[in-house]
């Protein structure tokens, strides 16, 4: 009895070994880069993690085709290396000792890739299913391109500055015109002062300067202008 049991088990083991080996039919290679992804929080790859992996694959198969009754024991892992890479194959629960076609497994994995990644705290890049390509996520496009907003702000500031400067310039121009008419009136008064107070030129009233030597003041006109 024991001998028959042993024989059956060894036959099953050998058959399974036949099913799961590198480059077998419908087998996929998986490669994990745990240390790259998690750094110091990296966990060690042991039998428990392998169990979780089998569970996730079984879960994926079940979710993919609702009539599937894949058990954890249907997922076979082999050739686990230190890299943390291994091959796996999914056997058909209804038919004995046959593997589920690779296309089904691929579709199932693809559909549930996100769940499988999160179970291991990894991403598409660090949990690689060689031969199963991941779909690229669509680019995130905001409704208004960000640069237009910045551009709008910059332009508004500049236009405000220009308008301010032009308006200030016009105001200064008007004030200067008003002042020059006032100064003409003042100068008339000054000329009267000059004739009354001998030789004090009007400009000294505006300047904080000290004395102006009359000789030098007249000297400036000696050079002819061209």
């Amino acid at each position, binding site marked *: 009895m024991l001998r028959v049991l042993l024989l059956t088990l060894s036959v099953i083991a050998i058959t399974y070994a036949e099913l799961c080996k590198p480059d077998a039919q419908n087998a996929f290679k998986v490669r994990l880069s745990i240390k790259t992804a998690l750094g110091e929080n990296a966990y060690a790859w042991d039998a428990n993690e392998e169990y979780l992996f089998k569970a996730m694959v079984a879960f994926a198969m079940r979710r993919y085709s609702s009539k599937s009754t894949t058990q954890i024991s249907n997922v076979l892992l082999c050739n686990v290396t*230190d890299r943390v890479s291994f091959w796996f194959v999914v056997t058909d629960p209804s038919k004995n000792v046959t593997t589920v076609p690779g296309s089904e497994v691929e579709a199932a994995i693809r559909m549930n890739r996100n769940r499988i990644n999160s179970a291991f705290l990894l991403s598409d890049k660090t949990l690689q299913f060689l031969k199963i390509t991941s779909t690229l996520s669509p680019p995130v496009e905001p409704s208004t391109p960000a640069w237009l907003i910045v551009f709008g702000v910059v332009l508004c500031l*500049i236009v405000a500055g220009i308008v301010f400067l032009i308006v200030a*310039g016009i105001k200064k121009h008007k004030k200067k015109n008003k002042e020059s008419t006032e100064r003409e009136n003042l100068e008339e008064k000054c000329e009267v002062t000059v004739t009354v107070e001998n030789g004090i030129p009007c400009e000294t009233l505006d300047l904080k300067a000290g004395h102006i030597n009359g000789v030098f003041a007249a000297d400036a006109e000696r050079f002819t202008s061209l």
Partner: protein
Amino acid sequence: LSVPPEIPKEDGRPKWDNKFQYILSCIGFAVGLGNVWRFPYLCQIHGGGAFLIPYIIALLFEGIPLLHLELALGQCLRKGSIGAWNSISPYLGGVGVGSWMVSVLVSLYYNTVLTWVMWYFINSFQEPLPWSVCPLNENRTGLNEECYESTAVNYFWYRKTLNITPDVTETGTLQWWLILCLGTCWAIVYLCTIRGIETTGKAIYVTALFPYLVLTIFLIHGLTLPGATDGLAYLFTPNLNTLKNPRVWLDAATQIFFSLSLAFGGLIAFSSYNPPKNDCEKDAVTVALVNSVTSLYASIPVFSVLGFKATTGYWECLDRNIISIINEFDLPEESIMRQNYTAWISFLNSSYPEKIAGLKLKNCDLQEFLDQSVSGTGLAFIIFTQAIMLMPGSQAWAILFFIMLFCLGLSSMFGNIEGVFTPLLELPAIPKLIPKELLSGIICLICFLIALCFTLGSGSYWIDIFDSYAGSLPLLVIAFLEVIGVVYVYKIKRFSKDVEMMTGRKPHLYWQITWRFISPLLLLIVFVAFVILQIQKPPSYAAWNPKYEGFPMKEDKVYPPWVLAICVLLAVLPCVFVPLVALFHLIKRTHRTKDSSFVPPEVFSCQGTNS
């Protein structure tokens, strides 16, 4: 006898608020984009620290004397470039017109470079940076092909910014985003130059000083980056053998010359607003030294960052190889590190040579990464943006970097625009009733409309043409004529007396010798060497052509004849005014030989022009 203190001259000429503003404006004009992206490149390819020897020699015998000459000229004659040269001699009026023409041409394309900086600046506010990821292709199966074959940074520059055409003859369409940015840039220039030096004098405090702040920040950050010391060692290690190559001396002379922004007329315009009694000698030495020190100072962060980029590239190359090996041999992660990579490689090569050969590992050499030297727009928009992507907080670094470039370029634009604006204000043809604001607005508007050509698909090729032909050769000619004109037409003795009056001491023997002999001779040699080098090979350009077999390498193409004609026109146009104006005055003189109102130029002197 009490000497009256400074009575402000009531000649209506605007003046600087204080001396510091004037010095800062000159420094801002001289210190520009070339200090950041041309000088470090020249240092690198011409033997590192050894390049400083021809550079300092050129500075002493060409840069400082010419700078002093221009500043003294403007301060003495108190007019813009056209008016100043007309005052020296009507026959030399063409020199002023030539300067003015060059300023116009350079203003046109220089602001377009600032447009590109502004475009990158406003794109730096996004997360992730738009030049860090490749967009997907139309059916979303993979990355965009052009981007995938080159890099994301290249793609953003050539496609998303320039939308460049494969050939200079294909003009492409106007790029609307560049037009928006160009309009903004010209609006900023208008805002700052609206009333001439009254407004630029205020703006210069920010635009001239802010780049130094950013350079210091980049210096401190750059020195903390890994690989910075490799980059700096590579830059500064002197290789004296390169000095045997005459090309090095030519590059040093041209770099000093173009870096100080001589012969544009902008410096003459700036110093014409000075009071006559101002020490222009000290100013010249100060500005030249600050310009050179800034070049050196800027090369330190630039090369720290380049060293960092080279090191990161080298590490990425190593990491790629390590991953290939680990995957192939199923070794545990982190068993091969960068440090023991060479040991592992030799071990594996001896045990499994066929497997290693099958992996097709790339040979990673740090020297090769460091050797990738680029100057100009390539340095700023491709290399530096790539390096910034690798730094944490890349948005902030990108924003700082592009604001710095913008300020550097803007302060140089002020000098260019003053070189255009000041002579126009003094032209008798412009009625005095036109307010300054209107004139500067008209100038900015006309320049903006013409510069729209540079926003076409082939725009960047045209900017290279303008830069190589309008912004180089005519300046050498004009500078040579300036020195000859002042020394031999105005007569050096009279000029020395004018300088003595302004600075209060006789010009030193050094100035006499350099002004009379050394600088003109040096300029002549540089000019001849420059022309010879240009003639030696047919002018070609590197085109970005995605359909080229060697893509992503650029395709070398030759300019078609009509483009060559435009190149020659650009180089000759400013220079041709000199003989034209001289001829015009000669003809005018022969028609009125006995006219007593014609004053011979000899009577002219510095003191008498203050009217």
